[in-house]
C-alpha cells in the first residue's frame, strides 16, 4: 500500500507492506541506519524516533499508521542547534552511548529537554531507566543532561 508522511521535514511517499514496522521502513526503505530495531517488542528502546512530537518505539508502529504523521529521526535533527547542543553535552560529559542505542538516547534527551528544560533526577530516571541497553550508566546520563542544561542557560543569557 501507499503511505505518505513527513520524514525529517520532507514529505515522502512509499509503497510498502502495510504491516511492516516503521523501524524497518526507516532502515530498509529510506536507508536511515541510525534507527536500530532491537527487540521488535517495544521493550528495549533502541528504535525510538519522534512521531508527531512524541518519543515512540518505531517497532510498535506499522507502516499504515504513519499516514500523514510527522516522523523525526536522528538524521533529521542533525545540524539543528538543539541537537548539536545535546551531542556536545554528551561529549563533554564523557557520555558515549554505544552505536546501537545512540540515536534513541539522543532523541530521548532531546524530547525530555524540550518538554522540561530543567529536569530533576526523577524525571531523567523516568525517561531513561527503561532503556535496556545499559552501555553507559545513569550517572553518565545525569552528567550529560546537567551539562546541557547549564550550557543552554548560559547560552541564552549570552543571547539576551
Amino acid at each position, binding site marked *: 500500500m501507499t503511505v505518505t508522511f513527513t520524514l525529517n521535514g520532507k514529505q515522502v511517499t512509499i509503497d510498502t507492506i502495510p*504491516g511492516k514496522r516503521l523501524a524497518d521502513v526507516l532502515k530498509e526503505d529510506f536507508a536511515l541506519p541510525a534507527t536500530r530495531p532491537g527487540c521488535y*517488542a517495544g521493550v528495549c528502546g533502541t528504535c525510538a524516533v519522534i512521531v508527531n512530537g512524541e518519543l515512540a518505539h518505531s*517497532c*510498535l*508502529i*506499522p507502516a499504515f499508521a504513519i*499516514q*500523514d504523521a510527522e516522523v523525526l529521526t536522528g538524521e533529521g535533527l542533525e545540524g539543528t542547534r538543539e541537537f548539536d547542543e545535546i551531542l556536545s553535552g554528551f561529549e563533554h560529559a564523557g557520555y558515549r552511548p554505544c552505536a546501537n542505542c545512540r540515536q534513541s538516547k539522543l532523541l530521548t534527551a532531546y524530547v525530555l529537554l524540550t518538554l522540561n528544560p530543567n529536569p530533576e533526577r526523577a524525571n531523567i530516571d523516568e*525517561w531513561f531507566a527503561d532503556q535496556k541497553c545499559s552501555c553507559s550508566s545513569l550517572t553518565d546520563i545525569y552528567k550529560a543532561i546537567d551539562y546541557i542544561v547549564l550550557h543552554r542557560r548560559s547560552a541564552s543569557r549570552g543571547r539576551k
Partner: protein
Amino acid sequence: MAANSETLKVFRPRTLAELLSLKKRRPDVVPFAGGTYILYGDTKKYPDIAAAVASMRHLEELKRIHRTERYIELGAGVTLSEIMRIGGRIVPPALAQAIRTIATKPVRSLASIGGNICVRPQRLTLFPVLSALEARLELREHGGSRWIPIARFIDQTGDLDISETEIVTRLRIPLSEWNYQCYRRLTDGPVSDRHSLSFCGLANADRGVLTDFRFVFGSMDKTILRNREIEAGLVGRKVPLLSRDINAICASFEELMQQFQSGFVSPFQASMAQKMLRWFLSSIDN
C-alpha cells in the same frame, strides 16, 4: 497468519460516522488506535495484526478532552501520555498512578485509553481503576449510541458486552473528591503476567466517619472483582477502623474470594488481594 502484514486491508475513515458505517458493513474490521496491545511483545519482524483494520489516528472526534465541574470526558483515542499531561489536579490520582505503571513512556505515547479497556482476552490495568471511579462509557454504532456504567461493560463471564458493530467512543470519569485514593499493581515486571493483580481503593471520611468506600481487584484474566455489600458494610464506621472491623471485612472478602478462587485467582493472588485490602483499610485516616 504471517500473510497478514502483507495482505492486511487498511481502512482510513476520516470521520466517526465513516467508521461506524464501516463497522456496520464490515464487523470484522479491527479498530486500530495505538495498536500497542497487538504489537507489544510480538517479536516477529512482520507482525500478525488482523485481516482488516480501521486506522483511527486521524479521528479527531475520538481525541477530544472535555471537562466540567463534575466529570472529565476523554475520547477513546486519547493516549495515556495525553491523559498524564492534563495534570494531577484533574486526573484522579489513582488513575494517574495506574497509567504510570503501564509499560514505558514511548509506549504510553501510542497506547489509547479506549484500547486499554477494549482488549477482549484480558482486563488490562485501567479497568479496575475506572470501575472503582464508576466511569461511564459511550458505545456507538451506526444509527445509535448508549451510555453504560463500566461495570456493565463486562458480562457475567467477564467478556466484553459490546456488539461487533459497536465501538467505545468516550469515557466519562466523575471528578469526585476522595480523601484516600490508591492504586497498586502486583507484577514481576512492566508487563503483566498470570500472577499479576491490581487493586484500586477509594475512601472518603468526614469528621472521623467513613462516608464512602470502594475497592476493586483485577487479575490478568477477565474478571473484575467488586462487592458493594462489603463496601456498604463499612460506610458509617469510625476511622481509623478498628482491628475487629478490618478483620470482619477481610473475612467477608475471603469468603467472596473462595467463591471465585478456582476461576479467578490463584492462592497467591488471593493472599495478595487480602494483604492489599487489609493494608488499605488500615491506612484510612491513620
